């Protein structure tokens, strides 16, 4: 947890089988997660830069706060060039 890499990116990934739509994630990481009309998370699949510390921190909170432990942070070693990723 302590080590912070400033290069590369991450995506918040949900295991849809585990997820029961509690919706804690959208409270804890509102910039990363929105809910559909049935209360299940919609998460953008474009990687977020690891240098975006506030996003990373909220993602970690969402992972820890999920009652079904359905979320995890997947590291993406190389960010695609250009404006595709979010900082």
């Amino acid at each position, binding site marked *: 947890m302590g080590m912070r890499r400033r290069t590369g990116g991450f995506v918040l*990934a949900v*295991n*849809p*089988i*585990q*997820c*029961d*739509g509690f919706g804690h994630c959208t409270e804890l990481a509102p910039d990363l997660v929105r809910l*559909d*009309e*049935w*209360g*299940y998370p*919609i998460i953008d*699949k474009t990687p977020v830069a690891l240098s975006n510390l506030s996003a990373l921190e909220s993602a970690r909170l969402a992972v820890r706060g999920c009652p079904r432990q359905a979320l995890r942070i*997947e590291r993406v070693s190389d960010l695609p060039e250009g404006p595709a990723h979010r900082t």
Partner: protein
Amino acid sequence: MIQAHDLPRLLHGDTGRPLTLAQHEATFPIGARPGGLFEELEASGLTGRGGAAFPTARKVRLLREQRNHHKFVVVNAMEGEPGAHKDQSLLSANPHLVLDGAEYLAAMIGAKNIAVAVARDNPSVVNHVTRALHERERRHDRGAKFELHTPPWRFVAGEESALVHWLDDNESLPQYRPQRPTILRIGHGPVLVDNAETCANVGLIGRYGAAWFRAHGTEQSPGTTLVSVTGAVERPTVAEVPLGTTLREILALADADPNPLALVMGGYGGSWLDGRHLDLPYANEALAPYGVSVGAGIIVVLSRAGCGVVETHRVVRWMANESARQCGPCAFGLPALAEDLGHLAHATRDAAAAYQRLVERAGVIEGRGACRHPDGVVRFVRSALAVFAADFEGHRHGAACAGAQSRRHFAAVPTLEREDELIWE
């Protein structure tokens, strides 16, 4: 030996009864394969016939690289699609060709066990395979050990991770795979899952080699394939055609309506294709620009007496009911799509609003399930919106087309045993 240009290949010597082992060995003598087994498979360019058209050699290579003594080969003959009869036809014509292919695959990856999975709802096929396995047991003792498994039939039970889940743990539910391609496992043993038709093709490549195999088909889609043609046809048919045959020729084999409104291509997880495009070759590279694919080798013909909106509703309603209900977007999203389509099919007062909801919901569901079941339904709905755009326009303004009133249906949907199986309504 059958010559490279002979047709059919997979259904060669079909007498209406399954070939015995002796007949099989006489019909398909071991030929002179020019090179090594794996090299020939790689050179053949064979792609999986279960729907995804993934290169078989790539899958085999992935499993070859695993160091493990408990590998499995799984022959998938579950045939989840209601319009499909190809695995059934193949196993009723020549089960030994499929089993030979499975043995070649096992030899290539070093597997000691082969599981053949046939839905228990298809007892005649189960009998054919049982008999074939007995014959082999008596004849020779080499290579891997066969086992027959008969999971109950459900649409998603044939999905590879659901099938492996059944073999591993008696639960026909798809598994979550964060990375793809993933190696599925039974216990600790990595599993190679291949469709029965893919195995039969491996059986031929193992005998006669890549050059022989490539004598039919196109450069990118070599070989022949089995295609089930149903719907507005005189004779529902499973035909073996070289990939690249035009749709018109394939439809003629089943005496289909020569001027159809549209075709379902690839099955209910596939797409609608406008009936004007009958001169397209049946091969993925030619079909891709039209948003359709060979898929699981199914063509359902919709005649001009039918209505695309009604057919789409019937299929989606059934597909929604076939969800394993593990993932929220699928368990709730697909019934919502079905409900919207219901309003449109019956051109109710709510139809215009339902159309808006349908478009929005279709955009939200994709890619959010553990398996591709919801994605397939969304693709089916999207293609319907494009192909039947004019009909949807009428239906949403309360004017159902003539076909919707005719009550003739073309896309076969299994009847639900009890209407209350539709748990959401």
